[in-house]
C-alpha cells in the first residue's frame, strides 16, 4: 500500500495549503498587533487544548470598527488568523463583520458554499481544514471577536 508519486505531491501540496505564503507573511509581519489606548470592548480567548491565546480589542464608533488590535501567543495559524482578521474587519460595519464572521466560520466547518468574494484573503485559511486539530487555532480569533462584539450595546 505504498502511495504513488502523485500521492506524495498531494501531501506536499497539503502542507503548503496549511502554511500558505500569505499566512506565513502575517505570522512574520503581524498587523495590528498590540493594544489600544481606550478600547470600547475587549475579550481574551483561550484554546485550552493547545494553549493558544488571543486577546481582541475594539473601538466601535457609530456601528463601525474604528480601531482593532490583537495580542496573544500560540502557533502560527492562531496568530496569523488573528492578524488577517484585524485587516479584514477594520473600517467595516458591525453588521458586515458579523456576516464575514459567519462566512469564515462556515468555511472552516467545511462548507463550500461560501462566496470567495466576501472572504478575500481569508480564503487562504481554507487549507487548514485538512488538518482537523488545527481548525480551532484558525477560528480562535473569530470566536474571541464575536465575544467582544457581544459586549457592545446595540445602537438604536
Amino acid at each position, binding site marked *: 500500500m*505504498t*502511495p504513488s508519486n502523485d*500521492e*506524495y505531491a498531494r*501531501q506536499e501540496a497539503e*502542507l503548503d495549503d*496549511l*502554511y500558505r505564503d500569505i499566512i*506565513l507573511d502575517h*505570522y512574520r509581519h503581524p498587523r495590528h498587533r498590540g493594544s489600544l489606548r481606550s478600547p470600547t470592548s475587549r475579550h481574551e480567548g483561550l484554546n485550552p*487544548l*493547545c*494553549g*493558544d*491565546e488571543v486577546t481582541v480589542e475594539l473601538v466601535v464608533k457609530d456601528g463601525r470598527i474604528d480601531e482593532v488590535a490583537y495580542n496573544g*501567543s*500560540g*502557533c*502560527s*495559524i492562531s496568530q496569523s488568523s488573528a492578524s488577517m482578521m484585524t485587516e479584514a474587519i477594520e473600517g467595516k460595519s458591525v453588521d458586515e463583520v458579523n456576516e464575514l464572521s459567519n462566512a469564515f466560520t462556515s468555511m472552516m466547518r467545511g462548507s463550500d458554499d461560501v462566496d470567495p468574494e466576501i472572504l478575500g484573503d481569508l480564503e487562504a485559511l481554507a487549507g487548514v481544514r485538512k*488538518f482537523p486539530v*488545527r481548525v480551532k*487555532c484558525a477560528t480562535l480569533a473569530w470566536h474571541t471577536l464575536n465575544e467582544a462584539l457581544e459586549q457592545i450595546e446595540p445602537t438604536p
Partner: protein
Amino acid sequence: MTLDVQRIREDFPILKRQVYGKPLVYLDNAATSQKPRQVIDALVSYYENYNSNIHRAVHCLGEEATAAYEEARAKVAAFINAPSPEFIVFTRNTTEAINLVAYTWGHANITARDEILLTQMEHHSNLIPWQRLAAEKGATIRYIGLTDQQTLDLADLANLFQSNTKMIAMPHASNSMGTINPIEEIAREARRRGVMFLVDGAQGAPHLKVDVQAINCDFYAFSSHKMLGPTGVGVLYGRRELLEEMEPFLGGGEMIRKVTFEGASWNDLPWKFEAGTPNIADVIAFGAAIDYLSELGMDNVRAHEIEITEYALDRLGQMDDIILYGPSSSTARGGVVSFNYGDLHPHDVGTILDRHGVAIRAGHHCTQPLMRTLGVSGTARASFYVYNTRDEVDVLVEALEAARDFFGK
C-alpha cells in the same frame, strides 16, 4: 547486556507502517507506547478461546478467564515487588487510581486543618483530584518548587513537611521534562513524619525497576498502555492496612460479600475496589506486556533509554536555537526530551515533523501550571522506549532542520 533493538522491532507490527510515505518514527511513548505482537495475540486469544465473565461462572470458560485475570494480577504484583497480589487493584488508568485514593482515603482523612503537599511538576491527573478534595474539605495545598535544573527543590528536606502535612503526592518521573524524583528519600522522610505518600508512577513503572517495598511508599499508581499493554487498564498498589480501612470507591457487583435490602458488606481485597465486570481482556493482555518487559529486564530497558536519551540530548544540544528542558544528566531523567526550537511554536514543529513520519507530542503535556512556571506556552517532546534507535534520533534532527528551513524561507 543491552537490548537487541532490531529483534525487538520485529515484534511491533505498527513499526512497519509508513506515515506520509516515510517510515514511522514513533517518539510519543510518554503519551502511549506501541504494542508487541505478544500483547495483541493475548487479546485475540482471549476473545477467540475463552471469553467469559470472571469470578462467578461455574463453567470451563469462566474458570479459564478467572485464572488468566488473576494470573495477570500476580504478574503485576511480582513486577513491582508488592508483598501480595491482594494489594493490586485494577482501575481504568493512573488517573482513576489516584481518584480512588482521593475519594476514599482522602475523604475519610483530610480535614480543613490539613495540608496536601504536591510539586510544581504535577500532571493534571495528580493535581485535579487533590484540588477538588481540598476545595471540598477546606484543606490547603502547597507545591514543592523547582531548581534551575528542573529538579525538585529539596534543599531543606528535613523541613519539607509542616506539622499539618497529611499527604504528599508526586510523579516518579516528570512526563514533561523527564526529571526522576528521589522518591525513596521522600518516602523515608514521609514515613518518619507519619505523612501519607502516593507516587504517580505513570512515567515510572514503564521505564524504571520499581520495588514498592524498597521505595516504602503508601500508594503507587500506573497505567498499562504506557508499558506495551492495552489501554483501559490502570493499577493501584496500596499498603494492606490502608486498603483494608478504606471504603469502596464504586458500588455494585463483584465488590460485595453479602447484600440485603438494608445494606451490604464488602468483598475481600482487592475485589472490594473492583465493582462491576472489569476490563478482563485488557488485564490479561497487560499480563503479556509484563512478561515481555520482564524478559527484556527493566535494568536493560533503563540502560537503553539512558543511551538513546544521551544521544538525543547530544544531537539536539548541538543545534542552534534549541532550548532543552529538564536535568542535563541523562541518568537523572527518564527517556523524555522536551525542547523548544527558536521562536517556532511546538504545534508548528509537530506538524512539520509529522510530515516526515516523526510522531512527537507538542503542547502543555497536561501540565499547564508547570508550563507557566517555565514561562512557555508549551514544548515539543520526544520520548523514547525499547524499540527506538539512534537512527530515529537522526531523522528527528533532520526533520527539525527541515522545519527551520520551512518557516525561515
